């Protein structure tokens, strides 16, 4: 076998990482945009608190966050037990949990980027759309959202990259089970824990870097295309 061919373990970790990060971004994107909108546009008592809660994952060490998730979403946790009882869904110790952990960790990055973009949107354009007969919802989807595309792209790539690299919260929340929760960083960790695993670890490291780079380049291309359209 060529030394460049991926081993089954590597492929498994790669596939899982993509899957988990993809889901993490997909699920948190709409929520993140909503949260960003609320923070950028509304004024309400307790806004600071909401803002704080969203940023919490950034301030707390990932391991602590993973532990909190475990306590909440574990089989014995408040939410976990409920989910299991009502829907039969187990989150802890499954890839869903890994996605949840990644999403939570990446959420503040996503929200910040979108919010920053939102705050830069010319409100005059929104007013103009209103006078043209579009209700607030339509204005949001036809004017606001397209104008914050750069922020959404930036947020999504930050979130995706952060998810790819997520380790502490994941390992604490969903453990390190191959094929189910052992994403690239976890596989990497496992390899560093065994003697002589350096070479294999290095390979995984390279894979992670390549993956991150590819995502990045894709996002740059997307952003450039968007910018070109605006100038077009």
């Amino acid at each position, binding site marked *: 076998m060529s030394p460049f061919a991926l081993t089954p373990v590597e492929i498994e970790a790669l596939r899982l990482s993509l899957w988990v990060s993809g889901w993490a971004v997909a699920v948190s994107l709409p929520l993140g945009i909503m949260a960003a909108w609320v923070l950028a546009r509304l004024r309400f008592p307790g806004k600071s608190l909401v803002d704080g809660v969203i940023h919490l994952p950034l301030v707390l060490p990932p391991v602590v966050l993973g532990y909190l998730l475990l306590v909440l979403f574990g089989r014995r946790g408040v939410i976990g037990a409920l989910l299991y009882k009502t829907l039969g869904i187990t989150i802890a110790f499954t890839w869903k949990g890994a996605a949840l952990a990644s999403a939570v960790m990446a959420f503040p990055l996503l929200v910040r980027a979108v919010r920053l973009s939102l705050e830069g949107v010319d409100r*005059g354009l929104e007013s103009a759309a209103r006078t043209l*007969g579009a209700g607030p919802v339509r204005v949001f989807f036809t004017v606001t959202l397209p104008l914050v595309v750069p922020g959404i792209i930036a947020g999504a790539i930050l979130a995706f990259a952060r998810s790819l690299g997520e380790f502490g919260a994941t390992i604490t929340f969903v453990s390190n089970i191959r094929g189910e929760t052992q994403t690239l960083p976890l596989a990497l960790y496992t390899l560093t824990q065994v003697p002589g695993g350096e070479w294999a670890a290095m390979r995984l490291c390279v894979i992670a870097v390549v993956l991150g780079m590819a995502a990045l380049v894709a996002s740059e291309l997307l952003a450039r295309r968007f910018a070109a359209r605006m100038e077009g």
Partner: protein
Amino acid sequence: MLDVRVKRRQGDFVINAVFRSEAVGVTALFGRSGAGKTSIINMVAGLVRPDEGHIIVNDRRLFDSTMSVDLPPEKRRVGYIFQDGRLFPHLSVRSNLTYGMGLAPKAERYVDFDQVVHLLGIEHLIDRRPAKLSGGEKQRVAIGRALLTSPSVLLMDEPLASLDVARKAEVLPFIARLSGEFSIPILYVSHSLEEILNLADAMVVLDSGSAVAVGSIEDLMSRRDLQHLTGYTDCGAVISTVVESQHETAGLTHLRFPGGVLKVPRLDAYVGAKVRVRIEARSVAIALVAPEQISVQNILPGTVEEITPGNGSLVDVRLDIGCPLLARITPQALKTLDLRAGQQVFAVIKSVAVSHGVLWRNGPTEAFE
């Protein structure tokens, strides 16, 4: 019909304007920079909330603080042409134009896409993005976008400032016709007397947030006390007339007015059409005997009513030729002719000089088809 009574405090500036305009057509909002024109238009559009008052357009109550009525902008069906353009940068010119088109109830659409695009001369821009348009091109797209919503009231904030004269001459009559044919009231802000004369039926003069004068163009434009506000040193008489007959070979149209017939260069209007003409005081000469063998077509007998010092060193003479007419002459002429109130004179008016003030609305119609 417009009925506006709004109060609002923004920063140090207080808007407290009351005006009613019964006119079906165009109401000009006139006032110096910072007088509050844009603010009032924003209130009518629903983009800015008055502290109190009411806004009624054609019997639709858009806002009323006492009745807690406050329609959102999208329900007001205004076509707003903004002072600062506001094209959507992420949409092509076509998508900008059609943005509001589909949102108007089908039954109420009365503006045709192709016609507007053609009229504004933006066919070749249709697939471009706003970022690369010139200033005037942007403004034309903005006008088209607002018109295409088939609005039930048009708000125009200096819409034609960046258009060249030829384009202006095409767009003005179109707007005038919209207002006339579909009874769309138009609130029109402009610093150009020419545009206002050509378009407006009524006028509201704003000063520091208050409506200091409201009335017909005819009345307000000859009021000398408003000159410091309008800034126009040219005053003149505005006369409502009816087309009496067309004279193809002579190149003249005869307009009947209370004092007789006014001959003007040929207008493309049907007999019986109402035409409003403005005769600038500076274009009217006064003669004691009717001049002969002269190219001037209108030599109308009248009486001197009043002589007042005019702008600068000039003298304004009010004549009665069946209706009021203003003539502005030099003190030298006043002395030579020895004019006094009650004197019988002739008003000498070049027909060509009159044409300038013909109301577009009822004027040339060839631009319409």
